[in-house]
């Protein structure tokens, strides 16, 4: 009995430590966003202080406002999501439910494109976009984001389309509905949940992307993940402002993550599960 209690205490301690290790860095940077610059720099670190919104006020309405960067992030993410879904829904439907010439190879091709190292894509893309003058443009960055969002969205949607019973389409055909109408009126409403989950993940991945953004950004396209660097330089770090910017960059994805929490595992593993099944 005594041994059991000790074990329980150890297990609770270990799991508590894990929990703390994960929460703390996020919590700490969020906390610092509500501190004054003096409180941030206090030694030893302060857990209790008078909260202030000064840092948020500065980064939102001050001379180095990040509002344009937040807007830029939203344009990139929403643009990528819309284009991806328009292309991915028909393709996923065809792969999941129709007789497609070379189906196996098409599926494998989509999967293989997911494994490419991004740095291998960005070098040629930079050269091409430079030649046509698309560096620092939204169409340039959204186009290249398709390289990772499209294969992901297709695979995720295929898994939802495959869950539907086949009788559904047959019944629609017998009623004389055209195939496109069937997809639009009958099938799509049945997978709205899956479409919503896909939208969340595509948006999230676009919001978080960094390598392509570093290379292709400029004065027009300047997402918040890039503008973060304005607050750290060799001379000085603007601590509380940096914390506020990080908080603003984290906020949308944390909200989306919590909304989609039941689907996170599926969203994260979809390609691998599929690839395993087909091999």
């Amino acid at each position, binding site marked *: 009995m005594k041994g059991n209690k000790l074990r329980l205490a150890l297990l609770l301690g270990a799991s508590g430590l894990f929990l703390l290790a*994960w929460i703390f860095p996020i919590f700490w*940077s969020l906390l610092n966003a509500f501190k004054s610059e003096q409180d941030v720099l206090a030694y030893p670190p302060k857990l209790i202080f008078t909260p202030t919104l000064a840092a948020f006020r500065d980064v939102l309405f001050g001379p180095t406002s990040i509002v344009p960067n937040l807007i830029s992030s939203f344009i990139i993410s929403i643009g990528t999501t819309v284009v991806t879904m328009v292309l991915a829904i028909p393709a996923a439907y065809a792969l999941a439910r129709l007789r497609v010439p070379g189906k196996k190879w098409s599926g494998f091709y989509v999967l293989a494109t997911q494994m490419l190292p991004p740095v291998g894509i960005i070098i*040629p893309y930079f050269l091409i976009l430079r030649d046509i003058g698309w560096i620092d443009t939204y169409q340039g960055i959204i186009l290249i984001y398709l*390289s990772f969002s499209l294969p992901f969205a297709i695979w995720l949607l295929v898994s939802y389309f495959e869950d539907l019973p086949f009788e559904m389409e047959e019944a629609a055909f017998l009623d004389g509905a055209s195939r496109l109408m069937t997809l639009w009126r009958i099938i799509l409403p049945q997978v709205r949940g899956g479409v919503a989950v896909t939208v969340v993940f595509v948006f*999230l991945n676009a919001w978080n992307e960094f*390598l392509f953004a570093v290379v292709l950004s400029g004065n027009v396209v300047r997402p918040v993940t890039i503008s973060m660097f304005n607050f750290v330089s060799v001379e000085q770090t603007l601590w509380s402002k940096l914390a506020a910017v990080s908080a603003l960059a984290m906020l949308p*994805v944390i909200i989306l993550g919590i909304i989609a929490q039941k689907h996170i595992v599926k969203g994260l593993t979809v390609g691998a599960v599929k690839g395993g099944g087909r091999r």
Partner: protein
Amino acid sequence: MTKATTLGVPAGGRADPARMMEGRERRFAAALLAPAFLALMATTTFPLLHLGWTSLHRMDLAMPYMDGFVGLDNYRELLGDPRFWSALGVSLVYTFSTVILQVALGLALALLVNGMRRGQALFRIVAILPVVLSPAVVGMVWRTFMLTPEFGVVDYLSMTAGLGSHNWLGDPSLALLSVVVIHTWQWTPFAFMVLLASLAALPEDIYEAARIDRASPWLCFLRITLPLLRPAIVMVIIMRTMVALTAFAAIFTVTGGGPGTATEILNLYAYRKSFTELSMGYGSALAVALLIFTLVVTGVLFALRRAK
């Protein structure tokens, strides 16, 4: 002969309805697939071909007058380039250490939480936070609020514990450790979530039988849990390896590959060569080498997965 015509288009010129339906379905499917596949080819296949072609050229954006076809010169240079071999080594260390840590810690925590009667939901929610964040933001938070000497929380803890203050990111011997820890911190929850889901799906009755046979918990773990969990573990290993091989943002944000080349994985080297030193031709050859490296590692992992 006559049989073939009745199956295909019969002599009367009237198409067989089933056959016609099938043809129409194929055309419809092709029409649905075409836009996505064109986009995929334009954004993945075409750049790859372009990359291979560029890697056979000398292309210095700083010295365009020297540009030209050089055949395999870039690759020859690469084989004798100590910085390439160092980057390959750092990539290997980074990939293997982060993947092993993630799987080991993720599995340990999944076992812990799976045994809990209450509080699982809390762990599930908290585990989501790191994985949805941008690696660039995660890197920035660690670089500043966690690891800055005499200010960051980690350094504060180190000093309080009597281990002294360290330059976690500026000291070559600590920098690689730091970026490994950051990657592990961000992605262990992924391994945890996947393994917890698999654990929860394991059949109860096997454990019941083992309990009746008075098998020790350790034996249960080794003989029952681990073999049943193997497919999930292998899948996590494969997925995490793929991601570790393409890692970029966190290291770029935290150390930029430095100090020196202490944290310069192949991705970083190819990036720095191409976009800092503007040597696109050689950078492309590095990216091709990275691609080959990725293919080899993937091949090995999938062979491992098929082996029993």
